[in-house]
């Protein structure tokens, strides 16, 4: 009985248990309990029952009303101009756009030097750069921007180059106008140890182009932060970066290096003192130089002698504090940082910037986070782990990017000054300005002129980035100098040949002859439109950006060029693969003559070339625009005066933009290409004078560019089956092989 009761009871209990277990969905509950903690993380903001009943944050009508029409815009603008001055300056309130509406638009005037004024080497270079730029004007009435003749670079009162009484002097200028439309260049302000922002005079409404600007005093969209440079910084050209090869993995002895002065007080001293914590002596090194102040030699120790700039090349990342940009010792008027910050990108060492509170140079337009590793000074100890986590791909990209920025904007005083002017110009004409992509992609903003187009696809540089390919048609521009007398002239043959190409969309004849152009009926009938324009007998007119050129590709031709249709077609195909280069037929070469110490030019057959003649060449039409608007009028005048060298100049221009050689394609060899004394009636292009002129041109151009942009190539592009022992029936370009 007891046992039975016991079993019944037990069974009952079990039943209850099981029943509850299944009916209650205990498992589910248990599971829910287990996952509860995670669930809470996923959805903590409640899903309100009355979500649908919540009011909108504003009525539609209110939103569309946009706060109503507001006060009179005209009055508002006037009020602004009086409120937002000095430290609140913006282009809208402190800049007179009306001055920039002249016929020529953006013009820069430089105050003439005054007697007894000492101008430092650096400032002299800045003024020279402005004066040589295409924006320079000598007439203050048509100027949009003014640059002072007084040297304002060094405002450290202890410096020997400090110019006193600037305030009184500028106030005496009739054009000063409280600094409106003025730009003031400055490298150093204040003095050690605090280096305040004080310039020692009232800049008023002038734009400050200053090295190491503090974010607190920086007037966004108004001031321009420029890099600090030494007096030895080249005026033009400038060295290319030191990144010569993209070694993978980057073979550098050190991972991270800091090199700089060790201050005991003053700005940046805390961080300097913390630096020794990350120094591990193996791949992270911190080298502090002793050269500071006047008596550093007294405290000199063994480590000081390691101070050579080769070390930069040994490391992959270089730690930089932006106050370095500031902390140049101006005591003796010499920047004691031979390796200042701006050499770091040149050394292809990736800067690690601890830039709390400093506006980076040209931060308006340059995307620094694509080129440097930015860190927070407060998180210095995290820097090593951050840097170690940077992958191979990113190191490769960062190194190339710093190099690209260096070459595009920093390598010479010319570039620094021009970049400053272009940034201001982009603000003045905001609707015709470069976008961020143009500034940060190759070849850099200085050679991308927004007046040509603001559309990326109109430039030869961005096809791959945009995922598009160049157009399928070209425009032939024929340069005609001799009058039309017979139907058997070479130009007639040329017209036939070119118009037969299926890629030719139109032909433009640039009439540069003494005689007026012949009547339309004199020209042969064409399958493509034929336009005759007047070249005004200027050689440089062949590279004018004629509005009639609608295709991206231009085939530039001399009237006496002998070509085959298949040669044209083949070259056009090649150009489509290299749209940013010149693709042409006859090559020429330059060389350095070590005896005469000048550049030489040769038309001999050589194993390498650096120029292709534009008497027959494909290139992008943008280069017409660059030729006519980027190059200085003096060089174009030289071309017009001598009726020569325009092709060399074009090659200089394109190579300076691309850093690459032109491309020569296969062509049947012709007598024209082999000048010899035996030919009786010498063509003008074969005379010795002509040749000497060209040699002079090469040297003149090289001095304007500040370096030799031409690059040699050792290859020629031929059709795949060119001169192969293969049946001619297989060959697409068999005509090219006929002798």
């Amino acid at each position: 009985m007891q046992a039975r009761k016991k079993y019944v009871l037990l069974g009952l209990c079990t039943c209850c248990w099981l029943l509850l277990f299944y009916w209650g969905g205990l498992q589910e509950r248990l599971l829910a309990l287990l996952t509860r903690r995670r669930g809470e993380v996923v959805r903590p903001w409640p899903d309100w029952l009355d979500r649908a009943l919540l009011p909108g944050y504003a009525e539609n009508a209110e939103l569309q009303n946009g706060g109503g029409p507001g006060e009179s815009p005209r009055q508002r603008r006037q009020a602004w101009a009086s409120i937002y001055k000095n430290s609140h300056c913006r282009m809208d309130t402190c800049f007179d756009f009306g001055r920039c509406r002249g016929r020529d638009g953006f013009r820069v005037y430089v105050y003439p030097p005054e007697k007894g004024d000492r101008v430092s080497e650096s400032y002299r270079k800045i003024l020279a750069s402005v004066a040589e730029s295409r924006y320079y004007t000598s007439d203050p009435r048509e100027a949009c921007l003014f640059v002072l003749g007084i040297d304002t670079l060094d405002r450290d009162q202890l410096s020997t180059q400090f110019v006193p009484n600037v305030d009184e002097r500028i106030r005496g200028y009739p054009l000063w106008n409280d600094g409106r439309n003025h730009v003031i260049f400055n490298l150093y302000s204040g003095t050690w140890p605090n280096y305040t922002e004080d310039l020692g005079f009232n800049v008023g409404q002038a734009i400050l182009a200053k090295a190491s600007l503090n974010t607190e005093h920086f007037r966004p969209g108004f001031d321009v932060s420029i890099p600090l440079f030494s007096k030895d910084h080249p005026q033009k050209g400038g060295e290319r970066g030191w990144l010569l090869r993209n070694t993978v993995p980057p073979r550098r002895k050190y991972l991270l290096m800091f090199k700089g002065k060790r201050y005991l007080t003053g700005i940046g001293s805390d961080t300097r003192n913390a630096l020794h914590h990350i120094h591990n002596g193996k791949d992270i090194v911190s080298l502090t130089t002793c050269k500071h102040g006047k008596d550093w030699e007294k405290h000199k120790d063994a480590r000081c002698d390691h101070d050579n700039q080769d070390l930069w090349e040994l490391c992959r990342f270089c730690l930089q504090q932006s106050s370095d940009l500031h902390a140049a010792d101006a005591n003796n008027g010499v920047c004691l940082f031979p390796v200042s910050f701006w050499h770091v990108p040149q050394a292809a060492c990736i800067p690690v910037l601890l830039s709390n509170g400093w506006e980076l140079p040209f931060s308006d337009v340059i995307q620094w986070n694509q080129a440097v590793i930015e860190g927070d000074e407060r998180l210095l100890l995290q820097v090593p782990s951050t840097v170690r986590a940077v992958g191979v791909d990113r190191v490769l990209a960062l190194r190339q990017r710093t190099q690209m920025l260096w070459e595009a904007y920093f390598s010479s005083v010319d570039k620094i000054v021009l970049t400053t002017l272009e940034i201001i110009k982009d603000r003045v004409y905001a609707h015709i300005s470069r976008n961020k992509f143009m500034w940060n992609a190759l070849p850099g903003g200085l050679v991308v002129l927004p007046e040509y187009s603001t559309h990326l696809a109109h430039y030869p540089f961005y096809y791959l980035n945009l995922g598009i390919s160049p157009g399928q048609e070209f425009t032939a521009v024929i340069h005609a100098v001799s009058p039309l007398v017979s139907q058997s002239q070479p130009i007639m043959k040329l017209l036939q040949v070119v118009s037969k190409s299926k890629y030719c969309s139109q032909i433009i004849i640039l009439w540069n002859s003494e005689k007026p152009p012949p009547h339309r009926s004199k020209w042969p009938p064409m399958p493509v439109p034929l336009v005759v324009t007047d070249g005004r007998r200027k050689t440089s007119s062949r590279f004018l950006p004629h509005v009639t050129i609608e295709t991206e590709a231009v085939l530039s031709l001399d009237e006496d060029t002998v070509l085959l249709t298949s040669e044209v077609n083949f070259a056009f195909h090649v150009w489509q693969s290299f749209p940013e280069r010149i693709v042409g037929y006859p090559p020429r070469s330059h060389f350095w003559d070590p005896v005469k110490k000048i550049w030489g030019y040769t038309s001999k057959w050589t194993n390498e070339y650096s120029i292709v003649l534009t008497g027959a060449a494909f290139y992008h039409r943008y280069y017409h625009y660059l030729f006519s608007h980027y190059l200085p009028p003096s060089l174009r005048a030289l071309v017009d005066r001598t009726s020569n060298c325009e092709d060399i100049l074009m090659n200089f221009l394109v190579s300076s933009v691309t850093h690459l050689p032109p491309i020569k394609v296969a062509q049947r060899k012709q007598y024209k290409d082999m000048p010899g004394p035996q030919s009786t009636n010498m063509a003008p292009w074969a005379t010795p004078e002509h040749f000497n002129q060209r040699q002079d041109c090469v040297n003149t151009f090289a001095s304007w560019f500040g370096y030799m942009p031409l690059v040699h190539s050792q290859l020629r592009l031929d059709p795949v089956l060119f001169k192969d022992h293969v049946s001619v029936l297989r060959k697409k370009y068999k005509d090219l092989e006929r002798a």
Partner: protein
Amino acid sequence: MCASVKYSSRGPALIPRMKTKHRIYYITLFSVVLLGLIATGMFQFWPHSIESSPEWTLDRRSVHDAPLVKLPVSSPIPERGDLSCRMHTCFDVYRCGYNPKNRIKVYIYPLQRFVDEVGVPISSTGLSREYNDLLSAISDSDFYTDDVTRACLFVPSIDVLNQNSLRIRETAQALAMLPRWDKGMNHLLFNMLPGGPPDYNTALDVPRDRALLAGGGFSTWTYRQGYDVSIPVYSPLSAEVDLPEKQPGPRRYFILSSQTAIHREYRTELERLKEENGEALLLLDKCSNLSQGMASARKRCYKGQVYDYPQILQESSFCVVLRGARLGQATLSDVLQAGCVPVIMADSYILPFSEVLDWKRASVVIPEEKLPEMYTILKSIPHRQVEEMQRQARWFWEAYFRSMKAIGLTTLQIINDRIYPYAARTYEEWNNPPVVKWSSVSNPLFLPLIPPRSPGFTAVVLTYDRVESLFRVITEISKVPSLAKLLVVWNNQNKSPPEESLWPKIAVPLRVVRTKENKLSNRFFPFDEIETEAVLAIDDDIIMLTSDELQFGYEVWREFPDRLVGYPGRLHLWDHEMGKWKYESEWTNEVSMVLTGAAFYHKYFNYLYTYKMPGDIKNWVDAHMNCEDIAMNFLVANITGKAPIKVTPRKKFKCPECTAIDGLSLDQTHMVERSECINKFASVFGTMPLKVVEHRADPVLYKDDFPEKLKSFPNIGSL
């Protein structure tokens, strides 16, 4: 709970009848059962917040259930925002810490209803639908943390989207009462409609200490660059109206003005423009005589004609967005949604998300002063660019304006990018629409460099057991002037390489690497022994290439360091009959691949091949013992967007020892397999990256009528 009470009351009645020896047993048994029942019951009715099914919505509370907090009159008021605040001065970066995911953690305060001492709420609307959406989006994102101690950023649940509905002083007091307020450090406030009549400040007037402000309608004087975030004014219309994307292209109107509150001076100016340019302009205004019941927000009128808003925006190329009393206009969002290019005329306005978005590619910004010139300015923009801007405008809306979620998460991402700048999103990631992202290439070796000749190249010879042939190859290659090092990859695990003394004596270092498995991909491994940028991959039977040919190949590679530079070229063709790709080794006029039996390329591509090859291509190649060269060609063409360079006439690798038939290459099955490879790879890459060209590279004076001895590379072999 009820159930357990019932059972426990029945329990004691049974126990007294038991014998003592059983009593303990039963008591234990019953307590177990009881406990079980109680526990079960508890589970049954325990409130659960995670349940999504409506049966268990006990926790679904109403907004009105949020706890009430009374603000004492004397409660402290924060200071006005400090205009000099920057991330390094007003933001506590230590809270964010270093983490491998480089993500900030965001905490949201639980909802509270703040009232003043007499019980009047601090805001007339309380939590708005938009702010609720924003907070839900943040809490659903991986920025969210519920752990207040781990948070880097704090988002109050006090809704300050619209300043007009706020009591300024009380809201400020409420903010200061937040438990972690700490002078507003690391707090983020979202505000879309700042200021109030009549002069409408451009930033939220609520005193907020150091809190970051994500504001709509900042002017350049109130915006703290690098600290605040400029956000759009959300337009609820975009949720109501579905405007399908319209293909970019010319539209019926050139310029459209749809705003209702334009200042008289500007309206006069616009009307003058309309007079001059006629039909190209459409000037809309409020409808004055709408019949009852029609939503006036959705209609616009011109001379009695009624238009649907915002649909009409899709009919125009450009849409005017003029400032009103406020700088930020909700119209901007509508305009972008319609894929109409906004013409923004609001001096000093900081455009939404301008820190990362390149507005020049999606809009035209014109100074207000230049309104009379608007037509001329817009006419000067090339058609193709207008189309691109239309596409870009729509993409901005879809990615960053579309919903409160998009706005909120974009704001957090921008702050995240500032805190972890080394992991920041790139310009391209922010600005390129998916179409462009898909088709564009960003070449990893983009800098135009012609590397110096001096370090030379490293030859990597893959070999199995053809020792004799290998030695001949080594001897031949060692004659090339620029050879820096020779690396033999010994792919035979069963046999050791010959003794050191047997190897040919050459002038450059020779290294032998033994591999663990006989895999084809071993030839593309980025061995540490390769110290040069340039790699010459070469098979152990390629002895026909002359020293001149190899040296010339290296010179060509120097001019094209981002490409594959090889000898025999191959082509891919589309087989229309079969509807798939076909491999072609016939002597064609075109080239899209070069064989890697002998090819120069950058060592970086070894990295890519070994570690970044998409899909299962690498394993597929190793399994099939074929097509490693096709895979390499795909890889390089895909990442650089460029064709390989074929040098010199070589068409095939023919060696004297080989039989008349070129080994496997002519075998029919082999060809089929290679075609299969192309189809397989194209499907893995999702596109056909190979580029077809018609040229090859020869020395400048190749086959020219010129003395051979004066040529740099006279000895170029044929075919």
